[in-house]
């Protein structure tokens, strides 16, 4: 929070000086960027510190180990109950008397609209651009393992949520930490909940806000020509303000409805491009597998590919982060574990399907330059990423890959990116708000303060450079995972009891499909 306060003061100072600075717009962007990088540097360095004597960030290991532990502890629940999860989403097990409540499909769609977005478009491009095609392999592995993490946290999210007298609900890691630990007689639940809430607010402002604003600006500037980022920031902040403060729900509703269609269109376009290059599919997968274990000359080799793959997968599907547990808590079900089953489909759709599509399109359209002499990838001048055809990185790399097949696609992608960014911001403003109200209590003024801070960060995000923004976004989201995963280790036995009970009743026929 201290860091937030400092950052807030820096922002306030910048806005007070803005009339003079506005005449020199790039200068303002640079100042915002520098102030931001200075304030967030130590936090970012800590989160991404490598294991002593290696280049492997401890946080990546933390997430991979957790996902593996949950996968083994629940005996590959993501495979055993995959079909059952789809049946739940289809509504086969929904009691008609409960119709009108939030359905499993709606909870999944809401959580997905918070996760599917720039991580799938820009994040994958960053992973493949730095870690090479091999990063895709590790991304898929992380996605498959992450399904078990998501299952664990979302089951707990529903089990320990708060239901208020007026019929509304609040749930998420902060509630299972405090209530779950108390139920098991463990100390420290409240402390963990407070820590998680602080990181969740930072994550909401970082990955859920600044990264989105930043990439949306890059996308728009790529089409209309370069202009200062704070202008995009102000427009975006105005719209977000109208929705979350002004209650202009119609904008949010339209976005929530358009985003799924954009997602489907994106996957279809990717599939068409892959089919157009059908003769190279085998080669592309060859690159993915070879790169996964050798690195194919990328910076950091195989470990570099692995780190990038895991890092971007975690950022994209948020498994183990705890955000989805907040989104899924709204479902009123007699069986909390059913929401866990439904949520395990998220990393599958987000990472295994959509992220892989993006990666395949970038690889198959040969955006990454290969040295003909060695067959390895060539590094850029700075030596920190693979050289690309037009020097693109992030979302512009994905855009260029799609444009190589459809010249008009960057325009569609720009609209998609803006809508994805907006929908992710709306979702994360809710996650951040829930953490904020957990810390400071419910109340109009308290909620308004958070919402205004959220809007200010939209402007900072759009104005700052990609480097510091992406580092801070990752750091804040991974900090949530540190606390969340720690709590999940203590609470996972609760989920195992639920799983055993549910599986037995499913087998005996006590839990059955309803004839619709």
């Amino acid at each position, binding site marked *: 929070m201290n860091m937030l306060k400092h950052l807030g003061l820096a922002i306030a100072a910048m806005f007070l000086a803005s009339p003079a600075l506005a005449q020199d717009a790039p200068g303002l962007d640079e100042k915002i960027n520098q102030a931001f990088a200075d304030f967030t540097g130590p936090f970012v360095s800590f989160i991404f510190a490598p294991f002593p004597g290696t280049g492997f960030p401890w946080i990546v290991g933390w997430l991979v180990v957790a996902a593996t532990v949950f996968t083994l502890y629940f005996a590959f629940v993501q495979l055993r109950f995959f079909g059952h999860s789809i049946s739940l989403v289809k509504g086969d097990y*929904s009691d008609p008397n409960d119709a*009108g409540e*939030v359905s499993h499909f*709606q909870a999944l769609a*809401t959580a997905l609209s918070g996760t599917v977005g720039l991580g799938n478009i820009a994040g994958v491009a960053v992973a493949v651009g730095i870690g090479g095609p091999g990063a895709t392999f590790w991304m898929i592995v992380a996605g498959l393992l992450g399904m078990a993490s998501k299952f664990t946290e979302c089951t707990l999210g529903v089990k320990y949520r708060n239901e208020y007298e007026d019929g509304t609900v609040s749930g998420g890691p902060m509630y299972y930490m405090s209530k779950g630990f108390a139920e098991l007689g463990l100390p420290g639940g409240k402390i963990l909940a407070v820590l998680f809430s602080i990181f969740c607010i930072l994550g909401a402002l970082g990955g859920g806000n600044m990264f989105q604003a930043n990439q949306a600006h890059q996308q728009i500037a790529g089409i209309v020509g370069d202009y200062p980022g704070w202008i995009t920031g102000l427009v975006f902040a105005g719209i977000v303000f109208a929705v979350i403060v002004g209650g202009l729900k119609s904008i949010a509703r339209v976005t929530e*409805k358009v985003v799924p269609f954009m997602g489907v269109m994106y996957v279809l376009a990717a599939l068409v491009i892959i089919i157009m290059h059908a003769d190279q599919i085998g080669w592309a997968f060859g690159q993915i597998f070879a790169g996964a274990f050798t690195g194919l000359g990328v910076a950091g080799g195989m470990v570099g590919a692995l780190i990038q793959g895991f890092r971007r997968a975690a950022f994209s599907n948020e498994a183990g982060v705890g955000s989805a547990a907040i989104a899924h808590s709204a479902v009123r079900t007699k069986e909390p574990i059913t929401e866990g089953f439904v949520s395990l489909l998220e990393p599958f759709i987000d990472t295994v399907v959509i992220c892989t599509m993006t990666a395949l399109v970038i690889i198959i359209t040969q955006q990454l330059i290969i040295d003909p002499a060695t067959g390895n990838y060539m590094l850029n001048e700075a030596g920190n990423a693979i050289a690309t055809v037009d020097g693109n990185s992030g979302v512009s790399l994905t855009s260029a890959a799609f444009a190589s097949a459809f010249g008009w696609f960057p325009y569609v992608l720009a609209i998609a990116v803006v809508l994805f960014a907006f929908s992710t911001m709306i*979702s994360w403003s809710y996650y951040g708000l829930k953490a904020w109200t957990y810390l400071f209590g419910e109340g109009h003024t308290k909620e308004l303060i958070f919402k205004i801070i959220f809007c200010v960060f939209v402007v900072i995000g759009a104005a700052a450079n990609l480097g510091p923004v992406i580092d801070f976004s990752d750091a804040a989201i991974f900090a949530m995972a540190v606390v969340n995963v720690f709590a999940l280790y203590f609470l996972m036995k609760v989920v195992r009891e639920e799983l055993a009970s549910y599986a037995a009743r499913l087998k005996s026929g006590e839990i059955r499909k309803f004839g619709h």
Partner: protein
Amino acid sequence: MTTKIVIGLDGTETGERAIAFAKDLAERIGTCELLVVYVIEWSPFTFQTPEENALRHKRREEEVDLATTRIVSPAVDALTAAGFTAHGIVRHGDVAETLNAITVENGGTQIIVGRASADGFKKRLFGSSTQNLVMHADVPVTVVN
């Protein structure tokens, strides 16, 4: 054995005509129970914001309460006052599917509905709820003009 007749209401005057017809029919049959049903159009496959989800249970209670007090209870009270045995049910879902499901669950022998008042593009494309009910119901359906 008591005959159960289901009356589907849609909150418009066509419902009144359906009730009038059901009363006439019930008088002729003799031992008859009337089930007044109102279905709130709802699909589990729509997209919502996290905030809408969090408020959903509260909204659902409000919707059920509104439909019960404004539409179903007045109809049930009027039927009871007129000497009929009547009950009311309010449920969310696809109108045609849910009306049929409630009829089957309760052992209803026929459904009486008013002719759909909805019009326009949606009706041309998907057909009205009444048309869907007539096409797919498991019991005879009477559509009152």
